[in-house]
Each structure stands twice: as C-alpha cells, then as structure tokens.
C-alpha cells in the first residue's frame, strides 16, 4: 500500500473527495494508524479496534462530502471521536443490560465515568497543546474563550484569534495527530 505523511493528507483527502480513486491507498495508509492509536488511547483493546474500523469506514463513506477548505485531519479525528463516544455508550448499555439481567439494579455510573475520563483526557491534551503556543496566543485564546476582548480594535482581535487558532490546530496535529 502506497505510503504518505500527515502533511500530505489535506491534498490527498481533497483529491479523494473530488473522486480521484488513486488517492485512496495513501489516505488509507495515513489514517488507519492514526485512528488505531487514537481509539487505543480511549478504549479497551477489545473495543478500540472495532471503533477504529468503524471510524475508518465512516470516513471513507463520507469522503465525498469532505470540504477541502476544512482541515482533513480535524475532520477525520472528529469522526473518530464520535465513534469513541458511541463505543463508550455501547459498553455502558451492555453493562446496564447485564446488570438488569442479573437482577442487580446497581448504579450505572461506569459509562458516565468513562465519558468523564474521556473528557478529562481531551482537556489534558488540549492544555498540553496550549502550552506549546506563545504567551500572546495563549492570552488571546483565553480572552476569546471567556468572551472578553483585548484592548485593541475588534478586527485586529479577530485576526489574532484566527491566527492563534490556526497555530493551535497545527500544534494539535503535530502532537496528537501522529501515531
């Protein structure tokens, strides 16, 4: 299978969305390890492989809808995160069913706990990525998040936010996109 790097993913994904079948092997080769690594970080081994496969199939099923102006990696990871959440919910349901079948009406807090753990993991990853940004970018994003604005013109602030977000996205891709 033809190989490629994450840096090529954007162009390859745009070609695939446009109907260029020759972009399929490299996109597959790039995405599969990334998805496996992501799901393995959030799910037990038994569910991680299934979730990665589901995510991969869903990504290819929706490839024709991919908007080339968006980040391909962020789009693919968004789908993978959805699959991780679905796998968590499925596990929770299985556990609840098992408890109900066993006549034990214990609290079904495990799934919520997993969601919380996933959330906490994401927050930790985001904080890590934020740490890689410059203090100015961090301050800009903090202000933006809290709905405030720096003492500059609105257009200038908007530009700063856009640039900081672009750098954050790039840093995220470098840190967490790679397998």
């Amino acid at each position: 299978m033809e190989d490629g790097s994450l840096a090529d993913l954007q162009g390859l994904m745009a070609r695939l969305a446009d109907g260029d079948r020759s972009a399929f092997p490299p996109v597959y080769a790039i995405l599969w390890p990334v998805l496996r690594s992501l799901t393995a970080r959030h799910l037990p081994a038994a569910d991680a492989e299934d979730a990665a496969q589901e995510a991969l199939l869903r990504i290819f099923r929706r490839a024709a809808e991919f908007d080339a102006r968006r980040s391909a990696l962020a789009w693919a990871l968004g789908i993978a995160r959805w699959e991780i959440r679905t796998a968590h919910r499925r596990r929770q349901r299985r556990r609840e069913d098992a408890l109900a079948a066993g006549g034990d009406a214990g609290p079904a807090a495990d799934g919520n706990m997993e969601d919380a753990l996933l959330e906490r993991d994401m927050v930790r990853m985001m904080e890590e990525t934020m740490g890689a940004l410059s203090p100015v970018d961090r301050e800009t994003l903090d202000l933006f998040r809290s709905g405030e604005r720096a003492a500059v013109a609105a257009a200038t602030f908007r530009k700063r936010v856009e640039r900081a977000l672009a750098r954050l996205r790039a840093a995220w891709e470098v840190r967490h996109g790679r397998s």
Partner: protein
Amino acid sequence: MGVPESVLADRARRAYEGGHLVSAGRRALLLAPLPVLALGCGCQPRTTVIAGALFLAAVFFCYWRGGEFRRGAGPGIAAGIVPLLAPSLCQAACTHGCSPQMMTWMPLACGAGGLAGGLLLAFLAPRPALEGVRPFLVACVIASLAGAVGCLAYGATGLVIMAAAFSIGALPVLAMKKA
C-alpha cells in the same frame, strides 16, 4: 476484531464507492423536480421523460465519476437550467394548452433560453486553456441535455434553435476570454 488488513482495505474502498454513489444520487435527485416540471408543463411527455432521464443519468455519472466530470457538471447544470425552464414556463403560461398559438412562442423561448444558457456557460464553465478540454465539454453536454428537456417539446427544431442560440451566446464571450 482482528480483520485482516486487505479485507479492511476492501471494505473501506466499498464504503468509499458507496458514499460516492449516494452523494451522486442525492445530487441527481435534487434536480429531478426540473424534468418533472417540464413534464407537467409540456406537450411531449415521452420525449421529455427520455431527455429528463438522460439528463439525470448524466448528472449522476459525472458526480459519481468525479474529477474533471464533476468540475464540468455544476456549470453545465447552471447553464442548462435556463433553456430547460424557459420553454416549460412558456407552455405553462399559455392558457390555450398545447395549441398552435402556443407553439409560435416556443422558438422564441428556446432561443432566449439558449442564449442566456450560452452566456452562463461561457462565464461559468472551466476554461479549456486552463483546466483542459474535458471539463468544458462535460459542461456543454450537461447544459445541452438540460436544455433538451425543455426545448424538445418543440421537436428537433427546438433543439436546433437552442443549440444555435447556445453557440451565439457562448462563443463571443469565450473568444473574448481567449478560452
């Protein structure tokens, strides 16, 4: 769990093709009301059905095949809608039904629609000098098929008038833009 890599790649490819088929089908389906409208307004149901089916099949093929076909399809549809709608609306507006009186207006509707479509084609279609001949040809074919759905109500003459008007509308602009 434990699906061999080659099997997974095959499944991913099938998912990709399936997604592409659905996407192309959805686009063709969105355009289905146009031939239906022409059918409701026109006096040549059989011809309209055949032309409409050909038009929708061509749109479906272009979006499924992707690449140059896809790039030509959008401008072709936009340019073809005018000669499709003009004769249909002319027939709908005529209170005398499919009378010879109404038929006197049809050449005008086909000509005006073709002229406007030709102009749109010249402005919207991918330029052969920049993107190659195929996307431009695809745009021409799709526009002609769409126009045929409306203008065939006036028989082959309607089609000839539309084609001539198409050329009159498109050629000067293309010559000015040096294609």
